[in-house]
């Protein structure tokens, strides 16, 4: 069953305005939290809620917050990752455009919990409309005394800056994002040190995804137990699932974690279009290994997807029907990763391009019998060996597509 938390205002006219958000009780939770809860209590509440990061990696949010060292003498920064750019993923954009105040309330609570005086919202440069809505919302919130310096009845202050990206997917990787905010080229940093200890401008920093933060007001409003119970044992709450590809109703759907993939496709997105059969489904955005038609009863949560060799990722579901060419689909995905590889580390820089070249050659009818194994081998030498997760992201689809649909990667003439 679909549950509307983050999406609850989306269908209302002017959902992006402060007026509509406040009609639904907006900013009440922030006010109550500031008045009655200590930052430590907020962190504990979020820990108990089993909220996990909605950006792709699924790291427990409360734990991330608790890693921030106290009293280092340096400011603590909160960075909001709104650099949503993976093919198939369009959930954060809806929040930014349809209900920016819910995000701002979440940012306020998170900043209070970790002790951040300044926050940065790193916005994908192409999100022009979203940027306008967010900046308008910040102006409205500041004017209403909800954000900004020296807020009434509270020692809490928060200045939020919107920083526009310049079009690099890699800047959604959290350390590349920090480099970009600092005005440098978006190259991921080596870890350790982790951002919680040494992040933005060398200070302790928490980086959270837009959807993650939009969940926070609900947790503080209704309690960790309530939120946690919505999901599975280890993955609390609901998740936004952008569904695209060969379905009747592509769009954004909110379901509890653990909802079977098939339910989201059939009930939410109206099933496969034109009565075709499913050939495969990418369950969590371009970087997640593809599932075959036999695997789509999997519950959509972090652990269940890991068990079948894929990932929840950003939750972006891409449905491929029986007429889809897996070769062309993989080529499309890998062109994206080759284009977006930052070029800093060797296996990702060279491997992504090599993979594209081999796929292009097969697509041009010049494949060789050893090509599928070559592709698998290149991917194997990228996975787990790159500086940041982009190498894994590029390798995952290759390994799953070529393993599960091997015959499509053999040149028909050569393989006969």
């Amino acid at each position, binding site marked *: 069953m679909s549950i509307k938390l983050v999406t609850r205002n989306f269908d209302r006219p002017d959902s992006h305005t402060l007026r509509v958000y406040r009609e639904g009780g907006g900013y009440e939770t922030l006010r109550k939290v500031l008045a009655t809860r200590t930052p430590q209590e907020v962190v504990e509440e979020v820990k108990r809620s089993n909220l996990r990061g909605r950006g792709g990696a699924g790291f427990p949010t409360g734990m991330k917050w608790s890693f921030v060292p106290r009293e280092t003498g340096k400011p603590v920064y909160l960075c909001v990752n709104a650099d949503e750019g993976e093919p198939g993923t369009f959930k954060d954009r809806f929040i930014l455009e349809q209900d920016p105040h819910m995000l701002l309330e979440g940012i306020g609570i998170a900043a209070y919990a970790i002790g951040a005086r300044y926050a940065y919202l790193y916005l994908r440069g192409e999100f022009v409309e979203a940027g306008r809505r967010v900046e308008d919302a910040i102006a409205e919130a500041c004017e209403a005394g909800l954000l900004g310096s020296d807020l009434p009845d509270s020692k809490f202050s928060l200045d939020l800056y919107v920083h526009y990206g310049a079009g*690099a997917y*890699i800047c959604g990787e959290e350390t590349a994002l920090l480099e970009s905010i600092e005005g440098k*080229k978006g190259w991921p940093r*080596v870890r*350790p040190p982790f951002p919680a200890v040494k992040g933005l401008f060398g200070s302790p920093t928490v980086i959270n995804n837009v959807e993650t933060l939009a969940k926070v007001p609900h947790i503080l409003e209704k309690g960790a137990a309530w939120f946690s119970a919505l999901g599975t044992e280890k993955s609390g709450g609901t998740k936004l699932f952008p569904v695209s590809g060969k379905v009747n109703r592509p769009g954004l759907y909110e379901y509890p974690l653990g909802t079977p993939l098939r339910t989201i496709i059939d009930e939410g997105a109206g099933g496969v279009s034109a009565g075709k059969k499913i050939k495969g489904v990418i369950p969590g955005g371009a970087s997640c290994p593809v599932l075959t038609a036999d695997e789509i009863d999997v519950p959509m949560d972090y652990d269940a997807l890991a068990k079948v060799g894929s990932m929840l990722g950003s939750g972006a579901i891409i449905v491929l029907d029986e007429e889809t060419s897996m070769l062309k689909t993989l080529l499309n995905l890998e062109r994206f990763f*080759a*284009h*977006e*590889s*930052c*070029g*800093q*580390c*060797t*296996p990702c*820089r*060279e*491997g*992504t*391009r*090599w993979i594209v*070249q*081999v796929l292009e*050659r097969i697509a041009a009818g010049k494949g060789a019998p050893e090509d599928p194994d*070559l592709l698998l081998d290149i991917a194997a*030498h990228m996975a*787990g*060996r*790159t*500086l940041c997760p982009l190498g894994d992201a590029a390798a995952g689809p290759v390994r799953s597509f070529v393993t599960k649909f091997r015959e499509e990667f053999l040149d028909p003439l050569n393989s006969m």
Partner: protein
Amino acid sequence: MPTLMIDDRKITVEPGTTVMQAADRLGIFIPRFCYHPGLSAVGSCRMCMVEVEKIPKLQTACTTPVVEGMVVHTYTEQVMDARRSVLEFLLINHPLDCPICDKAGECYLQDDYMEYARYTPRYKETRWKKRKVHILGPTIVMDEERCVLCSRCVRFLQEVTGKQRLGIFERGARSVLSTFPGQTLTDPYCGNIVDLCPVGALTDRTFRFQQRVWMLRRGESICPYCARGCNIAVDYNERSDVQINDRRVYRFRPRFNPKVNGHWICDRGRYAYRFIDDARRLREPMLREGKRLVPSGWERTLKRVARRIREVLDTFGPEGMGLILLPSVTIGTARRVRKLFVDDLGLTRIATGPSIDPEADEDSILLRRDRFPNRGGLVAAGFPDGDPGAVTEGVLRGWATGKIKLLYVIGDDLPRFFEETSSFSIPSAGGILILQRSMEGPEDDFARMLLPSAMTAETAGSFVNFEGEEQTFSAVLPPLEEALPDEEILGRLSLLLGLKGEEACRHENSVEEEQG
């Protein structure tokens, strides 16, 4: 202090040490491209991946801090597989132009290829074409196809010189190293990026296509061009057939010394290698005959020097002779000068040159304003410290006014200071100018005798740098043609002056041979 095991060997290191540093200390070599001990570690080339027990993924040794009880393996099948694959990736676009590449013979990629690579290439696609000749500055040229994008050069300029001159532009496989628009590499430390480049991407325009590195021999010396005393390697070819000499120096490179220069040298010192075989080197002793200086051989020239010194001292006493000893000489030379001219001959008009070249610049990296390498050594040999500039002025005034009849100058690199405040022209009262040095100079026109000295790389001795660090070096090369080390020239001179009390002269025999 964490203790860890690397390849079954135990080592205890300070907290914060990386696996790479610990392995280096044990002498266990882990291949690397981007890691350099003098720069920040970025873990980007992925060549140094090692196996750490209890961690499922391979870890980059250069960025992994050691932890108590860590067990590291640098030579397992998994590690070798990773090295093979990184090399395979790097070689995808690397041209096979080792036969014309100046880095061949000292190239990390070549070495690693021989050791770890997959010899049968699997890459059958179209290689990326990039610029083969991109001039980055007066001394640096870039071959974009050879670059492995390790960013060592970028980090060197950023972290050591504080200048953001180089960057890696574009993304992914299109990435390319370049200067920022409108900038060229003119900073006085740029030469280091050629040493730093692990492959043949950045080469030195003065060294390009000159020599194969395996034809060069390496000697160790000290840079004599400022008071820092950087440790240098002198790379020379013993049998060069393209030069009038039977040998030629092709480059200076830094030698690591944490107490003096770290990993680097400045370009002023680096490119001074050219002076050693320069056409302006003094090659044989000369005497003035009328308007011309005529090659005269050591015996005849030194006898004439000795005779003139005797005449002046006998007629005018020790005040009639002046001596300028520049701090470019070794401590040994300074001691011999003191014994000969001060203790035995009783000279009082002695100067050691101004400490500061007013037009010289100094920085917080290496370069010192005092362009002489051994001011401390002169003090150690008993010459006064203090304001040598004023003393030098005094001696020069004495020379200009005719009070000093004979002026003996030992040492190279007369700073501009001299030419501006005074000159070596012959004073109206007349006078005898004797120059003992390595290079020709405008003052030669007025000299009565020219005594060619060996340069630092041709000399053994020691210098004391501005921080009091004494550094001993030996001669890398024999002196050019007839030139001799200062100490030997002075030894011969003291014998000719009949100073029987002279301490044992190491060169006595050779002098006698020549006399006989």
